[in-house]
C-alpha cells in the first residue's frame, strides 16, 4: 500500500480497470481527497460540471460522522490504516480558504491556529510560498474575508514578525502594478487589506498612501470637471478610512482621518456633471428623482462625518484581530508586536481609467423606502461598507455564480455579530425587533446589492444575465429566505415602472421573466389583477403585456396561460397558442391570393429564380393596373411567403432567406417603401410572436437586406408598430430598436478597436445619422407635435401617456448617443486619422 502514500504526484488519474481490490481504491480516494482538495470551503459551490467534488463531499461527510475512515466495504476486516495527513502547505491553503465561513464564528481560534501553523512552518519553503501567494489572491478574489486574512497576518506578526517583510513587499508592489494598469478595484482591495494591518505599520502607515491618492484626485478634478478617475480615487480613500479606524482606533488615526475628510469634502459633496446621465430614475419634469442626492461618494462623505461625530463605532465591521478576554496573553502580544515600515507605493505618472470606462456611482436600493429598516439607511456607513464588499464579491467571482450566491447567503458571517437579524426572518416580524437591535435582513442586503448591478447605468461590469444567474442560484440555495425578498424587490420595481429609466425598466422585465422561467413561472399575479383593465399604454399594463410575451417565448402559450388567474387569460389569445401563423394568401379573399400561394409553392420546392420571376412580373403588372406600388406589393407577397415557408423553425426561415437573399437585397435596395415592406411583412406574419420577428429582422440586418435606419423608421416614425404612439409602450418595439442600435454601436466599436481607419468615418457618420433620426422622431412624440398624436379624431385621452413614453425613450437613446460620443472622444487620435 505504500505506493498510495505521499508523494502522489502524477497519480491524479485513477483507472477504473485497476486490478486493486475495491477497499484499496476507496481508501486511496480518501487520501486523495485530503491531499488534493481543490476547493476547500471556498463557499462550497463547485462547478456543476465537476462530478468528482460531489463524490468527495460524500466521502468527507461519512468520515466526519464516524470520526474515522470507514467505507462501504464492511467485509474488509483488515486493520484500518492510519489516516494520511496532508502536508502543511496543503492544510494552510485549505484553512485559509475556509476562513470565517463557519457560522459558529470561532474567529480568534481559527485565526490563531492558522497563524501558528504559518509561524511554525517558517522554514518550510512550500508553506511560505503558499502563504505569500495565497494572501494577495484571497484579498482580490474573496473580498469579504479581507479582515480575517489580515487578522491571521497580524497574529503571524506577533509570533514571527520577520515573515511580514516579504508579504508587505509583495502586496505593495502588486498594488503599484495594478494602479499602473488602472485596475482600481484591485488597488482598493489591497489598500483595504493594508488598512486592516494599520496597527502593525510604523508612523502614519496607510494614511500617507491615501494622501498621495488624494493629491492625484485633486489634479485630475481641477483639470476637468468631467473627470471620473479622480472621483474613483476619492471613493477608494473614503472606503479605506473605516477599515483603518477599525484596525487602529487611536486618536492619531482619528486626527489623520479628519484631516483627510476635510480635504475630500469638496470633491465628494459636489454633484458630478455626469450624474444626471446615469440616474436610474427618470421622473416627470417637476418632480425630483429619488436618487437625486444619492451620489455614492457624497453619501460616503456624510456617513463618515456622522461616524466621526459618534466616535467611530463602525459597528458593522468585524474585528477578528481583537482577542476575547480569556486570550489576554495573545492580545498583549498583538499590541506589542513589531511594527513595520510600509514600503512606498508610488502611483504612475499618468493615471488611466483602466479597461472599463469609469462613471460616477449612485446608491440604488429597492428597500430604502420601506417603513421598517430591512437594510441600513443611507445615513449609516454600514450601507456603504457592506454594499461595497458585496459588490466586489459579486463582480470578482463572475466565474462561479454558485460561490457568489453562497457568499451572498452567508453575508452575515463576514460582519460583526449583531449586524443583521437572524437569517430568513420574515419581513413582518421586523416590526417586533427591540429598538436597539438590528432589523437588517441579510437576504435583503444581498438582493439589494445584486439589484444595484442590474440597475446600474450605463452598464454593469458583466453581462446582465450574470446577475440573473446569481439571483437564481441564491434562490435555489435558500428559497425560503430569498424568495420573499425578491418578491418585495419586484413589487418595488413594478410600482416604480412609470419613473424608472426606460432601459432599466426593460432590464427588469427581462430579468423578471427569466427568473420566473427558472422557478416554474410562479408569481402572485393576483396582486396586479386590477391593472389588467388599464389601457395598454399604461406603464403597468405595458409591463404585464411585455412580461407575458417574454414568458411565452421562453416557454409556450398554453403553459403560461396555466399559471395565470382568470382575468389575465384574455391577454393570451388563441393566435398565441398557434405555433405556425396562418398564411394570409391561403384565404381566397386576400388580394393576390393565387400569386401568394404560387410563390409559396415555388419557394417550398426550392425553385430557381427564373421560375419565380414570372410570378413577380405578373404581380407587378396587376399592381400597376390597380394603381398600387408594384414593388411594395410584390415584396409583401414574397417576404410573407418566405416567412410562411420557413415557419417551421428559425433554421428553416434562415435557410429560405439565404436562398433568396439576392432577390431580397435587390428589393430592399430598390426603394425605401420596399425596405419598410420587408419589415412589415415579417412583423405582420409573426405579429403574435414578436420574438421570432425580432430574430428574423436581426438576421436581415446582418445580410444588409434591411438597414438600421429602416428599422428605426418603421418602429418610431411610421405608425406601423402600433397606431397613435402605442408603439412606444410596447416592450418588444423597445427591444427591436435597442438591439438595432446596439448592433450599430458595437460594430463601430469593433472597427475602432481594430485600429484600421479605413471606412471608420462612414461608420461614424452612419451612427450619428441613426441617432439623429431617432432624436427627431422621439422629440416629436415627447413634445406632442407628432401628426398622429395631434389628430383630434383619434384622440383617446392617452396623449399624455404617449408624451411621457416619448420622453423616456428620448432619454435612453440620448444617453446611448452621449456614451458613444465619449467613446469616440477617448479614441480621438484614430478617429481623426480616418
Amino acid at each position, binding site marked *: 500500500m505504500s505506493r498510495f502514500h505521499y508523494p502522489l504526484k502524477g497519480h*491524479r*488519474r*485513477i*483507472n*477504473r480497470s485497476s486490478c486493486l481490490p475495491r477497499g484499496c481504491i476507496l481508501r486511496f*480516494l480518501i487520501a486523495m481527497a485530503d491531499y*488534493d482538495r*481543490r*476547493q476547500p470551503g*471556498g*463557499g462550497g*459551490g*463547485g*462547478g*456543476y*460540471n*465537476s*462530478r*468528482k*467534488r460531489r*463524490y468527495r463531499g460524500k466521502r468527507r461527510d461519512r468520515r466526519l460522522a464516524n470520526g474515522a475512515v470507514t467505507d462501504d466495504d464492511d467485509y474488509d476486516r483488515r486493520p484500518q490504516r492510519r489516516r494520511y495527513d496532508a502536508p502543511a502547505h496543503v492544510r494552510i491553503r485549505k484553512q485559509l*480558504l475556509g476562513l470565517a465561513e463557519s457560522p459558529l464564528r470561532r474567529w480568534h481560534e481559527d485565526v490563531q491556529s492558522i497563524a501558528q501553523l504559518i509561524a511554525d512552518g517558517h522554514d518550510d519553503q512550500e508553506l511560505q510560498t503558499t502563504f505569500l*501567494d*495565497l494572501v494577495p*489572491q*484571497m484579498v482580490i*478574489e*474573496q473580498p469579504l474575508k479581507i479582515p480575517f486574512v489580515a487578522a491571521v497576518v497580524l497574529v503571524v506578526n506577533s509570533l514571527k514578525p520577520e515573515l511580514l517583510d516579504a508579504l508587505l513587499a509583495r502586496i505593495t508592489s502588486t498594488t503599484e502594478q495594478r494602479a499602473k494598469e488602472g485596475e482600481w478595484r484591485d488597488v482598493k482591495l489591497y489598500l483595504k487589506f493594508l488598512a486592516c494591518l494599520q496597527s502593525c505599520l510604523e508612523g502614519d502607515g496607510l494614511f500617507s498612501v491615501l494622501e498621495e491618492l488624494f493629491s492625484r484626485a485633486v489634479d485630475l478634478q481641477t483639470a476637468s470637471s468631467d473627470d471620473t478617475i479622480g472621483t474613483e480615487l476619492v471613493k477608494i480613500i473614503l472606503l479605506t478610512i473605516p477599515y483603518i479606524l477599525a484596525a487602529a482606533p487611536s486618536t492619531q488615526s482619528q486626527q489623520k482621518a479628519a484631516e483627510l475628510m476635510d480635504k475630500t469634502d469638496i470633491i465628494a459633496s459636489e454633484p458630478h456633471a455626469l450624474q444626471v446621465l446615469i440616474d436610474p430614475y427618470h421622473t416627470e419634469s417637476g418632480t425630483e428623482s429619488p436618487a437625486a442626492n444619492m451620489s455614492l461618494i457624497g453619501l460616503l462623505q456624510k456617513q463618515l462625518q456622522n461616524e466621526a461625530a459618534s466616535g467611530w463605532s463602525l459597528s458593522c465591521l468585524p474585528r477578528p484581530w481583537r482577542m476575547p478576554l480569556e486570550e489576554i496573553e495573545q492580545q498583549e502580544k498583538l499590541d506589542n508586536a513589531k511594527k513595520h515600515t510600509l514600503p512606498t507605493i508610488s502611483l504612475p505618472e499618468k493615471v488611466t481609467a483602466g479597461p472599463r470606462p469609469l462613471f460616477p456611482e449612485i446608491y440604488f436600493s429597492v428597500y430604502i423606502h420601506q417603513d421598517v429598516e430591512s437594510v441600513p439607511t443611507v445615513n449609516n456607513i454600514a450601507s456603504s461598507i457592506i454594499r461595497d464588499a458585496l459588490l466586489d464579491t459579486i463582480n470578482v*467571482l*463572475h*466565474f*462561479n*455564480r*454558485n*460561490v457568489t450566491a453562497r457568499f451572498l447567503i452567508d453575508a452575515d458571517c463576514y460582519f460583526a455579530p449583531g449586524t443583521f437579524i437572524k437569517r430568513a426572518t420574515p419581513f413582518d416580524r421586523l416590526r417586533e425587533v427591540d429598538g436597539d437591535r438590528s432589523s437588517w435582513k441579510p437576504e435583503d442586503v444581498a438582493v439589494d446589492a445584486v439589484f444595484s448591478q442590474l440597475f446600474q447605468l450605463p452598464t454593469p461590469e*458583466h*453581462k*446582465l*444575465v*450574470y446577475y*440573473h*444567474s446569481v439571483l*437564481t442560484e441564491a434562490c435555489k440555495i435558500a428559497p425560503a429566505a430569498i424568495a420573499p425578498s425578491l418578491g418585495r424587490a419586484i413589487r418595488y420595481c413594478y410600482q416604480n415602472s412609470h419613473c424608472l429609466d426606460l432601459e432599466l425598466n426593460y432590464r427588469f422585465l*427581462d430579468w423578471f421573466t*427569466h427568473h420566473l*422561467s*427558472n422557478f*416554474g413561472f410562479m408569481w402572485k399575479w393576483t396582486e396586479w389583477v386590477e391593472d389588467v383593465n388599464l389601457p395598454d399604454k399604461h406603464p403597468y399594463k405595458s409591463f404585464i403585456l411585455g412580461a407575458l410575451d*417574454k414568458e411565452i*417565448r*421562453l*416557454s409556450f402559450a398554453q403553459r403560461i396561460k396555466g399559471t395565470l388567474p382568470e382575468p389575465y387569460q384574455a391577454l393570451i389569445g388563441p393566435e398565441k397558442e398557434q405555433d405556425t401563423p396562418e398564411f394570409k394568401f391561403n384565404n381566397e379573399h386576400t388580394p393576390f391570393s393565387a400569386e401568394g400561394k404560387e410563390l409559396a409553392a415555388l419557394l417550398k420546392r426550392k425553385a430557381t429564380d427564373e421560375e419565380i420571376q414570372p410570378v413577380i412580373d405578373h404581380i407587378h403588372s396587376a399592381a400597376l393596373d390597380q394603381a398600387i406600388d408594384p414593388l411594395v406589393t410584390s415584396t409583401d407577397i414574397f417576404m410573407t411567403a418566405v416567412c410562411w415557408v420557413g415557419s417551421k*423553425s*428559425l*433554421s428553416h426561415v434562415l435557410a429560405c432567406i439565404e436562398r433568396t437573399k439576392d432577390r431580397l437585397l435587390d428589393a430592399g435596395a430598390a426603394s425605401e417603401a420596399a425596405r419598410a415592406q420587408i419589415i412589415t411583412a415579417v412583423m405582420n406574419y409573426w405579429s403574435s*410572436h414578436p*420574438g*421570432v420577428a425580432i*430574430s428574423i429582422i*436581426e438576421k436581415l440586418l446582418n445580410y444588409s437586406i434591411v438597414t438600421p435606419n429602416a428599422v428605426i423608421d418603421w418602429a418610431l416614425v411610421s405608425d406601423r408598430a402600433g397606431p397613435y404612439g402605442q408603439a412606444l409602450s410596447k416592450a418588444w418595439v423597445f427591444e427591436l430598436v435597442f438591439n438595432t442600435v446596439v448592433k450599430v454601436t458595437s460594430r463601430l466599436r469593433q472597427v475602432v478597436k481594430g485600429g484600421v481607419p479605413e471606412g471608420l468615418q462612414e461608420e461614424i457618420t452612419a451612427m450619428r445619422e441613426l441617432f439623429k433620426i431617432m432624436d427627431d422622431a422621439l422629440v416629436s412624440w415627447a413634445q406632442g407635435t407628432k401628426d398622429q398624436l395631434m389628430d383630434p379624431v383619434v384622440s383617446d385621452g392617452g396623449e399624455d401617456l404617449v408624451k411621457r413614453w416619448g420622453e423616456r425613450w428620448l432619454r435612453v437613446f440620448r444617453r446611448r448617443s452621449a456614451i458613444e460620443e465619449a467613446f469616440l472622444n477617448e479614441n480621438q487620435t484614430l478617429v481623426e486619422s480616418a
Partner: protein
Amino acid sequence: MRPGPRSTVDRLDQPSAYYHNRNNKRRRNDHGRDGKDGSKDGDTEMTDAKPEEPPEDPLKNATTLYVGNLSFYTTEEQVYELFSKCGEIKRLVMGLDRFQKTPCGFCFVEYYTHQDALDCMKYIGGTKLDERVIRTDLDPGFEEGRQYGRGKSGGQVRDEYRDDFDEGRGGLGRAIQAERMREAERNRERDGHHEDDYGRLR
C-alpha cells in the same frame, strides 16, 4: 486552458471531463458526443484526467457549445431566446433523431466570439430552459453528421437504457421500453392462454 495561478474557487467556464476523457482516452472517431455511456464510477474517477499537453488546445478559441438535457419539445426559438442573453447567436443546430429527424434533446449553439461562449458556460449552463436544467460544454465546433443521435434507435445514447421516466425525453429509455413491450406482449399471450384454458375448464 487559462494561464496564471489557479483561482481560489473553481471556474465554471472549463470544459467538462467528457471532452478531455474523450480526447485523451478513447480517441474514437465517431460522431456526436452524447454518450456518457460508461458506468458512473468510471467517469467519477477520471474527472481530473488531464490531456497530455496537446500542442494546441482545440477549445482555446471555441465559439461553439454543446447543449444537453433539453426536452424533445424545446424549440429553436426557445433556445434562441435564452442563449441570446450571452451574445448574438451565429448558428444553432438542433440535435435530431437519426431516423425520425425530430429533436432528440441536444443542440449546438455557435456564437461569434469565444468570450460569449465562455459567458454562456458561466451564466446559462446549469440553469433551466423549458423547466429543465440544461448542461453546456465547450465544443471544438460543429461538423456535419454530429447533429444526429448515436443511440441504437436513433436518439442519444443516454436515452437508450435510462430507467427513470422522463416525460420531456420520451419516457423511459427506448431499449427498456422495447423490452417492456416485448414482455407485456409475452404476458398477454400467456394470460390469453390462461383465460382460454380457464374458460375451457369451466
